[in-house]
């Protein structure tokens, strides 16, 4: 124990004794104030446990206070229960009430829970004021004399101490970690083994107990209860105000907030409305300027104050040596035993069979690859196997039927999975992300878990980011975090969903060797992947899915040579690059876009440094580089989504930087964003029309629509369908068409081939060539270098946020630096 910590504990002890001895030295007035502060502090802390850690904003404080009050009053009046037992009974009744309502209430998530809690509290208040039992509107008078202010003070002080102590314990416990994971992403929390219902229930019950106790003391102190007072919304209002003003999710904050609130109400005792209105104003101000409350702000201003220790926080950075070797040799299941068996599993989404009766076996010691065109049902299959989705058919895990089991149970039994689009717990650090999986999914103790997490992080090359919030990681590292977190549930079976997507050659090499080394740690691996190098080098067996069914399965090399597979997946050109013929008539040397020394940053992280390049009218610039090199950041900066911190951007004689995205579009720069971003609420045609906001002329809109439909006939046929009803390739067509609807003179295409089967990519690049033929200049961001080079007039290669190389495609092909970065990359997606 450090000297600082000892001193703090001694000070805390002295304070506690002094407060507890209050009735010996303080006047009745100050005891009353102390009583009020302690009551409010206990409530605020109870609320803060739910809201701060679990992200559950409850507006039902009054309901629990009221139940506690009534239980205490009724038991006192009817059974003559004494002071302390009566108050305890209040707490227990509130717990019982919490258990009762938890089943329906926890079906609501997020904002729904908030609504539901307010409706619940109001329904209870309404019922009590209409119900004729329990004293009706008159209420109940307690038997015996009310406790002295000293006794009430001591009692509420004890409750506040319990509340603060619980919060301090939760902040460091497995429970707290689980709550924070639920707060960030409940589905994923479940998938790494957090028993979400039980975890939330524990916090809910604890908060209810504290609130019930406060209600009990209140009933004893006042001597009677009535519906209008016990269930009054003001309990909820004051509690939330105090918690937020002080600082939600902190240990001291809610106490501080209670003190501020009571102090203000004493000052304005004669103007109750003014007081409440002022507190409301203070609340709004605090949310705006200091979201972590007065206490959080004070901590930030006093850098010497120790930040509260969370379970995942590395205690001493790099104190212990970390081995990157595989963990202790574990007993592997005897090779060949069936670990996972799917019998006719299926899933229907709005009439479409995403997965249609798939039979699958995964044996110990095996790495099974799953490929197929987009929309073949690969990710859905992972969802069905991991328990994230419910469907039909039967799933057997490790020899037992697992069909009805949820994701959390399957994770605890040894299923680790990644997500195609990373879903980190954004508010937790990288280390904490893994700790959730270790402590819940793998059920490890804190110390052992921390050592194991460090080992996994080292293996996935993330150790230096252990203390970094996951929200600050880039895509590449988020993908590694997905893998690391899946490993942290100590899985026997790993389900990997496209972890190779978007990686360039050297990154793929690392990934392949990592997957190979995992064969010694997990019993079996299932890999869904578009990057065929990964399949070829890692898998023992390959399954091809098409429209939700197994098309072919067997030896990977043989399967990839299969003609059926070539037709549905690889495309008739066999994925060979097509260099489409183009008219070069519209080309001039006059630059339409001029980027001069641009820098940009995300928070403190500088993503672009001194980037300069030009694009001539009607010209195609290919923007290449590895992941995290700054390609998408460049695109976002050009289109006004990310402000520049230095430099200038000129388009057609007009300054672009400093304008917001919707203004940049109107200047003539369209941005076809990474990930398609189709609006499911809008029809295909409405998606397109949204892109034509810079014209008010109906014939003009009609003309642009017809141009897009001429380019993509498939869109015309589906013009009245929802954007969500399209296949991946059609969605990409729609995204391209939508960008064209603004009649732009420059379009930025960001990764249009990502996640698409080669045959579809051929089709899209032909379309790009046609668009360019009409004189539209382009910036093409592409991970598939050959695709980019085939279309480009000029190339710029980004490296670590700087332009490393520029030239014509011929120059670039000869350059050593490109070769070292991308050698063989084009083979990555093509057999």
């Amino acid at each position, binding site marked *: 124990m450090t000297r600082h910590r000892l001193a703090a504990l001694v000070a805390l002890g002295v304070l506690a004794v002094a407060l507890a001895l209050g009735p010996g030295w303080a006047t009745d007035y100050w005891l009353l104030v102390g009583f009020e502060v302690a009551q409010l502090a206990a409530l605020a802390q109870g609320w803060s446990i739910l809201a701060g850690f679990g992200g559950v904003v409850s507006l039902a404080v009054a309901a629990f206070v009221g139940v506690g009050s009534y239980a205490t009053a009724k038991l006192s009046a009817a059974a003559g229960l004494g002071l302390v037992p009566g108050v305890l009974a209040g707490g227990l009744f509130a717990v019982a009430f919490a258990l009762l309502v938890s089943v329906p209430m926890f079906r609501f998530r997020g904002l729904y829970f908030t609504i539901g809690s307010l409706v619940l509290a109001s329904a209870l208040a309404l019922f009590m004021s*209409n119900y004729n039992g329990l004293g009706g509107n008159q209420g109940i008078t307690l038997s015996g004399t009310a406790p002295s202010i000293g006794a009430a003070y001591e009692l509420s002080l004890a409750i506040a101490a319990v509340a603060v102590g619980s919060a301090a314990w939760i902040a460091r416990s497995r429970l707290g970690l689980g709550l924070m994971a639920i707060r960030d992403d409940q589905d994923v929390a479940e998938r790494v083994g957090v028993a979400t219902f039980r975890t939330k229930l524990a916090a809910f019950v604890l908060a209810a107990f504290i609130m019930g106790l406060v209600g009990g003391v209140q009933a004893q102190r006042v001597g009677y209860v009535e519906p209008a007072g016990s269930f009054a919304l003001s309990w909820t209002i004051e509690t939330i105000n105090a918690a937020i003003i002080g600082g939600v999710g902190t240990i001291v904050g809610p106490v501080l907030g209670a003190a501020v609130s009571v102090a203000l109400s004493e000052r304005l005792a004669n103007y109750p409305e003014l007081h409440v209105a002022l507190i409301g104003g203070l609340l709004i101000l605090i949310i705006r300027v200091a979201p972590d409350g007065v206490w959080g702000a004070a901590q930030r201003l006093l850098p010497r104050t120790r930040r509260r220790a969370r379970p995942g926080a590395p205690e001493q950075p790099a104190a212990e040596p970390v081995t990157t070797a595989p963990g202790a040799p574990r007993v592997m299941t005897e090779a060949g035993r069936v670990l996972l068996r799917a019998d006719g599993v299926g899933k229907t989404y709005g009439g479409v069979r995403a997965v249609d009766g798939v039979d699958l076996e995964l044996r110990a010691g095996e790495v099974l690859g799953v490929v197929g065109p987009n929309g073949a049902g690969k990710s859905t299959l992972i969802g069905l196997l991991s328990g994230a989705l419910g469907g039909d058919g039967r799933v057997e895990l490790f020899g037992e039927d697992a069909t009805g089991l949820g994701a959390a149970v399957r994770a605890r039994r040894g299923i680790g999975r990644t997500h195609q689009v990373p879903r980190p717990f954004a508010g937790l650090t990288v280390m904490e992300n893994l700790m959730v999986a270790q402590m819940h999914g793998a059920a490890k103790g804190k110390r052992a878990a921390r050592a194991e997490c460090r080992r996994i992080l080292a293996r996935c090359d993330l150790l230096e980011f252990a203390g970094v919030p996951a929200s600050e990681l880039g895509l590449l590292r988020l993908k590694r975090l997905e893998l690391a977190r899946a490993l942290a549930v100590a899985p026997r079976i790993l389900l990997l969903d496209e972890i190779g997507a978007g990686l360039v050659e050297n990154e793929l090499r690392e990934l392949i060797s990592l997957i190979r080394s995992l064969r010694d740690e997990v019993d079996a691996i299932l890999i869904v992947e578009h990057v065929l190098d990964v399949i070829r080098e890692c898998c023992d067996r390959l399954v091809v899915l098409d429209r939700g069914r197994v098309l072919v399965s067997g030896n990977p090399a043989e399967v990839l040579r299969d003609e059926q597979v070539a037709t549905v997946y690889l495309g008739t050109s066999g994925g060979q690059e097509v260099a489409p013929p183009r008219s070069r008539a519209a080309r001039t040397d006059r630059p339409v876009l001029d980027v001069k020394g641009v820098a940009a940053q995300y928070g403190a992280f500088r993503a672009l440094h001194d980037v300069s390049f030009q694009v001539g009218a009607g010209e195609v610039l290919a923007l290449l580089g590895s992941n995290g090199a700054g390609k998408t950041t460049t695109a976002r900066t050009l289109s006004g989504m990310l402000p520049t911190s230095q430099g200038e951007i000129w388009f057609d004689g007009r300054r672009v930087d400093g304008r917001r995205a919707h203004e940049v579009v109107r200047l003539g720069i369209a941005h076809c964003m990474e990930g398609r971003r189709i609006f499911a609420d809008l029809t295909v045609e409405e998606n397109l029309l949204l892109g034509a906001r810079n014209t008010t002329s109906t014939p003009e809109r009609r003309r642009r629509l017809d141009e897009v439909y001429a380019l993509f006939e498939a869109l015309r046929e589906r013009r009245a369908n929802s954007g969500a009803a399209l296949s991946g390739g059609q969605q990409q067509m729609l995204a391209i068409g939508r960008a064209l609807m603004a009649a732009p003179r420059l379009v930025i295409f960001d990764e249009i081939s990502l996640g698409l089967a080669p045959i579809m990519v051929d089709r899209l690049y032909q379309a790009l060539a046609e668009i360019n033929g009409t004189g539209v200049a382009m910036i093409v961001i592409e991970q598939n270098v050959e695709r980019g080079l085939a279309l480009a007039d000029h190339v710029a290669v980004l490296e670590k946020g700087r332009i490393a190389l520029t030239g014509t495609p011929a120059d670039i092909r000869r350059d050593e630096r490109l070769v070292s970065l991308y050698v063989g990359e084009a083979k990555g997606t093509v057999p």
Partner: protein
Amino acid sequence: MNLPGAYELVNALIAGVLLGGLFAVTALGLSLVFGVMRLINLVHGELIVLGAYLSLELIRRTGLDPLLTILVVAPALFIIAVPIQRLLLEPLQAKGPEPALLTTFGLSVIAQNVFILIWSGDTQTLKAGYATDSLKIFGIHVPVMYLISFGIGLALCGAVHVLVQRTGLGRAIRASSEDPEAAAALGVDVPRVRIFVYGLAAACAAVGGVLLGTTFDFTPTTGLTYLLTGFVVVVLGGLGSVKGTLLGALLLGVVESVGGAFVGDGYRDFIGFVAFLIVLSIRPQGLFGRVAVQ
């Protein structure tokens, strides 16, 4: 519990449907804001009540008919709401749902107390000659105000539905609600769309305030009741859908009215709330909704 006869039941049914029109007006703004901004606008009830108070002032000063004051009060609420969204809520948009939610909570607390300071806690009503009249249709007495509220509710829902589903602005509204960044990349000025929607929601609330102030009475804290019935309507009907809001409102009106006929008028809202909790725990996406918002 006293079992009502067939006459009382039919009466309650009709009154319920008509009352549903009023519920639709008071819930419409809540639904819009929830649908587009994913924000539970806890100050919505106070916006309704403010509409009623402004109408009251106008009637006192000019002697206008309550229904005519809508023409002044609705634009006034639009103008009052714009800076709330622009200065207080919009800057919090990027920080997740809680900060904005709690800001509206703070606004609601302030508004209630300011109402008490200005207009005292007394019960008020907007006086109109026809407010207490009732028509006799097929032997059943129907209060005129119920009919008027129903008509205005239907018209307002229809107008907002057309705006959202059939116009360019509506496309921008729907796109902004689904993926603000992608909408901006296509040229939609998203903050402006949000400000407009918030203003429109407040204007709808004002219409609701005038109607309820004429039909019933109100106090500074009446807003809570209409906020809650608004929730019930919006969630029953499915989020962000105008059609769903109308259906949810009619359903709630009938449930409350018929339920009230069975167990007593004091339990009306209680019945609605309990129905809400039961329905939602069985169908978290609402009765008419397709997908639940996480």
